[in-house]
Structures are given as structure tokens and as C-alpha cells.
């Protein structure tokens, strides 16, 4: 005996049942037309209608350039030239053997660890603070999140003046307490510290915003129960709130890592990779080699290496870190 679900699923069965039961009105002519089986091409058409534009855009603007870049990385090609010379893996060999590569990788690592780690910690602290019932909380939330929506170039230009060792606010503040301004622009290490500070200032609002949303969904009863059991706020935070924030932390670790490794605007506006290439990350190197030196093939090779690094790191995060997320 077919169930109601089966009847809905199969129009053929529905007809059979109606015939077998013989419930046909002799007065009213039969107006019932059995539903025809949905043609697969219709489903495809519907699928193409909804997904087609997105898929087409993804193919044209994401996957095609990605694969094209892989192909270009095997060429010795001057940007703008109508012809190129195939060099196989030559560009990769050059990059791995270049004495400057160690510096670029080191700068990229320091920048990424500092901005991702620092951003998560500071963002969480802000979120915890902004989650409390404080006076002027709304304004404070706006202030923390606002830099995130500003243009990176505008932020870079603004901070260019803030850090100016002769005319900047930092120099004036340090001077007030009897300290000299560090050589932000003339020392590669200080320059890296400077762009990290600016990157954090701009992006910490994003982390705070996401953590804030997550904190507001932490069940109050768990915290109240812990308090009743005598757990200190610090312990409750460590043993209840932090584990519950696990999925958020995992999500943020991926998104902030990707965004940090692709950071370009602040470096371009403030230091242009200098001084002494002290702020040249892999992302900036791709731009420099591709558009300033016109080495399109070599630049594509560096882009491919960065892509591989991002892919591997993300896969590792998904494979291993996600397992540690408690719920």
C-alpha cells in the first residue's frame, strides 16, 4: 500500500491508485490531469538560471585567471609583450634560489603571525569589553568597527602622517615623555612594526564584531550555573566561554589569515615595500615583480606559490584544527 509520501513522489502511482479505487464521479466529467514526470532538462534549466550567472562569473574572474596564472608561471614573459619564452619550472627555481626570498618569506611570516595572532587576541578583548553593560557602549562599538570599513589606502595615508618622525602625533607624544621617535621609515624592522600596527588598527574591528556576535549567543544559564558552583569569572571564561567560541575562532583564523596574506593597500600607501624591502611581503612582491618590473611570468610563479601556501594552510586548518573545535 503506498503511503501518502509515495503518492506525492510518483504521479504514475497516483493514477494507478485512483483507477484501482474506482472513485470516479459519473456526473462530473473527469477534469483531473495526472502530473507529468518532471523532465530532467527542466531541472537543469532551473539550475542554470539560478546558478549560471554566478558560476560563469566565478569561472571567468576566478578560475580562469587562476589557471592562466599557473600557465604564465611557466613562461619568461615581459608584461605587455605579445610573445613569451617557455621556461618550464625556471621561474620557481629562480625564486627558491633568490637570496632575497628568505627575507620576503620572513617578512610575510612575521606580518601574518603578528596580524592574525594579534588581531584575534585584541579583537577578543575588545569584544569582551564591548559585551559588558557599559556607559556609551554603542558609541564604543562604532568606534572599534569603523576603521574596518575605511579604505586601506586612506588609512595608510592618514597613518603616514601620524608616524612622521618630524611632524607626526607619535613623535609629539613620545617627545612629551622625553623619548625620540623610532626611525619608522628608515629602519626596515620599525617599518614592519609600523605597518603591523596600522593593519591591526584597521582590521581588529572585524574580529571584535564577529566575536561580539558569538559572545551574545553564549547561554547565560551555563555562566550562572558556573557562578553558583563557585567558578571565578576568569575560570568561567576559560572553561566555558572560550570553548563555546571555538567555531568562531576557527572561522576567524581562516578569514583573517587569508586577508593578512593578501594584504597590499596599507603597504603600498605607506612604505611601498621599503625601506630596504623590509615590508615586502609575498603579496607585495607579486605586484612589484609583475607590474613594476614587468616580469609577468616570475610574478605568476610567486602568486602560484602563495596560492599553494594558502591552500595547504587552509586544508590543514580544516583537517586538524576543526577537530579541536568542541561543538
Amino acid at each position, binding site marked *: 500500500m503506498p503511503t501518502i509520501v509515495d503518492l506525492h513522489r510518483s504521479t504514475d502511482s497516483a493514477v494507478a491508485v485512483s483507477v484501482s479505487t474506482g472513485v470516479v464521479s459519473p456526473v462530473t466529467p473527469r477534469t483531473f490531469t495526472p502530473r507529468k514526470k518532471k523532465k530532467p532538462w527542466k531541472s537543469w534549466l532551473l539550475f542554470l538560471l539560478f546558478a549560471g550567472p554566478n558560476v560563469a562569473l566565478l*569561472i571567468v574572474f576566478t*578560475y*580562469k585567471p*587562476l*589557471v*592562466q596564472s*599557473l*600557465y*604564465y608561471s611557466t*613562461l*619568461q*614573459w*615581459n*608584461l*605587455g*609583450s*605579445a*610573445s*613569451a*619564452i*617557455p621556461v618550464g619550472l625556471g621561474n620557481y627555481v*629562480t625564486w627558491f634560489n633568490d*637570496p632575497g626570498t628568505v627575507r620576503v618569506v620572513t617578512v610575510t611570516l612575521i606580518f601574518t603571525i603578528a596580524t592574525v595572532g594579534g588581531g584575534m587576541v585584541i579583537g577578543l578583548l575588545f569584544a569582551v569589553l564591548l559585551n559588558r553593560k557599559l556607559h556609551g557602549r554603542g558609541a564604543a562599538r562604532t568606534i572599534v568597527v569603523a576603521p574596518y570599513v575605511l579604505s586601506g589606502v586612506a588609512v595608510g595615508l592618514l597613518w*603616514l602622517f601620524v608616524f*612622521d*618622525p*618630524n*611632524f607626526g602625533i607619535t613623535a609629539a607624544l613620545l617627545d612629551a615623555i622625553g623619548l625620540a621617535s623610532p*626611525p*619608522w*621609515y*628608515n*629602519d626596515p624592522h620599525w617599518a614592519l612594526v609600523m605597518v603591523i600596527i596600522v593593519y591591526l588598527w584597521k582590521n581588529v574591528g572585524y574580529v571584535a564584531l564577529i566575536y561580539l556576535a558569538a559572545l551574545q549567543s553564549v547561554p547565560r544559564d551555563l555562566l550562572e550555573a558556573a557562578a553558583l558552583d563557585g567558578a571565578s569569572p576568569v575560570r568561567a571564561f576559560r572553561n566555558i566561554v572560550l570553548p563555546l567560541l571555538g*567555531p568562531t575562532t576557527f572561522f576567524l583564523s581562516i578569514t583573517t589569515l587569508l586577508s593578512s596574506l593578501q594584504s597590499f593597500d596599507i603597504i603600498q600607501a605607506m612604505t*611601498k615595500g*621599503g*625601506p*630596504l*624591502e623590509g615590508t615586502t611581503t609575498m603579496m607585495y612582491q607579486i605586484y*612589484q*615583480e609583475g*607590474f*613594476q*618590473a*614587468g*616580469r609577468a611570468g616570475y610574478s605568476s610563479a610567486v602568486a602560484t606559490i602563495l596560492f599553494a601556501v594558502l591552500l595547504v594552510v587552509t*586544508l590543514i586548518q*580544516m*583537517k586538524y584544527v*576543526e*577537530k579541536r*573545535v568542541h*561543538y
Partner: protein
Amino acid sequence: MTATPTFTINRRQILKLAAVFGATATLAACSGPSLGAGAGAAEAAVTDWTGITPAKEITWWSNHPGTSKLIEEEIIKRFQAENPEITVNLVTAGANYDEIAQKFQAASGTNSVPDLVLASDVWWFRYMINGQVLPLDDLAKHLEFDTADFNTTLYDDYTFTGNHWAIPYARSTPLFYYNKAVWAKAGLPDRAPKTWAEFDEWAPKIAADGGVTPLGLGKGASWAAWWFCNMLWGQGGAYSDEWTMTLDTPEAIAAADYLQSLIYERKVATVAAVDQVADFGAGLTGCIMGSTGSLTGILKAATFEVGTGFLPEGPEGQACPTGGTGVAIAADRTPEQQLAAGMFLKFLTNSENTAYFSSNTGYMPVRTSARDGETMTKVYAEFPQFRTAVDQLETTRSQDWGRVFVPNGDKELTTALEKIMLQQADPAEAFAVASTAIATSFDENVSAYL
């Protein structure tokens, strides 16, 4: 709550992924450059210009050097009044020469290539080896350009393989700027030091009596390796002799030693953090080597009287590089468009418009007739500092190929000079690293295209 499924990928998914990438790769391989060695500069195309009618519309990519958008628009207006059948579209294609070059190279092979494009001292050669610009001699001859009237150094800057690949337009050189008030306090004559040896004598007085750091130096790409030509050539050295790097010569090392001694031994020079011109304008330094293109801005911004002079001479005499930009015609356009572009280029760089452009921007008058004409004479009377810059033009020389023609040449030299200036690195070592990198870049990116 349920556990979030962990990420897994099976063999079938890997195969699907490979199929997607394979299909896209096929698609990707359909576009891009053609393969093969020996690609290079556009052959000196033989076009019979006599039978060609100029196109009705052309496009010009500019960054309006010296905030010259209104000036350029006015010149276009004048051109269209004389040639109503041709429309010139002026496009702001970037904020500086580099941005224009990046767009021009990226647009190669598409329909978006302009007819005319700015071609700066460090970019025109790359346009040429990429086959992106037209050799201009035939067209100039057909249109009866008065090329003999151009300043010879500035015109010949764009020569390679016997052809000219651009026409000089917004050209500049470095110039010595000094703070007259500081000079007066230090009891110095009202002029720039004639030689670096004389500057060495004056510097302690400027520091002690003038109360400022005597010399401000600029760092960064497209800048440090430009003004350093003065010290390098003044010592008898050079970045390169054609394609051979010559930074290991005693003269080159002596120039770098001298630069380093100004900062670390004598402590009479400082490297600006952000902008040496702004520091000079704020009275932090007594003098700088700046671009002639900054002249108008410096005169406006400074709260003190500014003096100008030739760059100081080294032991081997006067040494000043040329700089700035010319205008080129794209190779990948129809002869009709190229002819119309040539007509506009002739108009843009004629004597009257050269004087009009120079007098409004501070760039060098690239024609002798414009330099000595009525318009510029009035400018010299009002701003005698400008006259110094124009007079210095006679002593300039084209830049070394190792810096301006090799991709990353300027970048590698800038890094070497920054090591020398900011980290007190051994000049021989810093130059050796730069020389090796530039020689490698030449092998990989230039020689195959010549």
C-alpha cells in the same frame, strides 16, 4: 548540538577537481602571449603615410605631470580649433608614470590601447622591447616635425637601434635648492656650492651657525638612484657601460664612500623619513637635491627665500642626469590613428605649446626656440630660479642603461643605496649584490628581446 563534520576529500572529488582545472586550463591556454624567442621591438614598420587619412578620434593617456590637466586640455582645445576633424580624448590613466606604464602594459593586445601614451625615462625602453610603441622618425619626417630644434640630449634620450621611440614632453633634471636665510646666517655667499669639496667646507658652518642639518637626502625607488648619478658621474664612475655593470670600479666605490661619509663621518647629511622636499620646506635641512619639476611647489610652500643652483661638481666635473617623460605613439593602432596621433604630438610639442606648458608647470622647455622665446623670458624675469634649471640643461646627460633599461634596475640600485645610507653597509658589497641582480635581470628579461 551536533558535531560539525570534519573536512575530508576522497579520490572521486580529487578527480572532479582535476577535471574542472583541466577544462579551465584549456580555456586559459586560448589566450595570452604567443610562444617563441626573438620577440622584440616593433620592426621599423614601413608605412607610406602619404596615402593615409588621419582618424577622426584619438585617445591620449596622461597623468598630467605637474598638475597640468587644465594646460593639457587647453592645448587639446587649440589643436581641435585648428583641426576640427580630429577629436582628442584626454584620459587620466594614473597618478604617476609607473601607474600609466602598468596600465599600458596590461592593456597590450586589447582594444583599450591608447593612441598616445606618456613614456617616462624608465619606461619607454620597455615599451620599445615589448613592441608596444612606434618608431617615430618616418612619421616625424612626413609631418615635418622640426626635430633639430629639440634639446639634443632630451631628444636623443629616446634613441635605440637608430630610431627615436618618443618625443620629449615633460622633462626635468635634479636641481640644487638652498635656504637663503640659513646661508645668510652661516655667512655664506648667496649661491650653491660649485663643487662637493666646497660644500664640505661650508657644511660645518651651516650646521653650527645655520642651526639645521646641512643636506637632506631622499630615499626610495625612482628617486635615490636618480640624484646619485650626480655623485657617481662626478667621481668618474657610472652604473653601467651600456649593458655591462660598472659598480665595482674604484670611482663608483669612491662615490658611495663619499655619500656615506656625509651621513656617518661628517654627520652633515640626513636621509628624509618621508619627503625630503617637505622637510626642506619646513626648514629642517639647509639644502637638497630636488627635481626641477618640484620648483613651483617648493617656491610656493617655503616660508623662506629659496635659492637654486647647478648640482655640485665632483672631481671629474659637472654631472646631471635627465629625467621626466616623453610621449610615444602605440604600435598596435591603425596607420590612420597613428597619423592623427602624430599630428597632435607635433602640435603638443611645437615651440608655442612647449613654452605654454613649461611656463605653467616648471618642466624644462624641450625646444631651444621655446627656451629663448618671449614667454619663457618673462618667466625667467619673474622666477630667476627657473633660469638656473634651464641653464643646467646644457650640462645634462642621458642615464646609464643599467638603471633605466633593465627591469628592477632602479629597484636593485635603490636597495644598494639604502643599505649604504641607512645601514652603513659596505658599498662594495652592496653594489656587488645589485650588479649581480641587474646582470641576471638583463639576461632573463632584456637580451632575449633585443
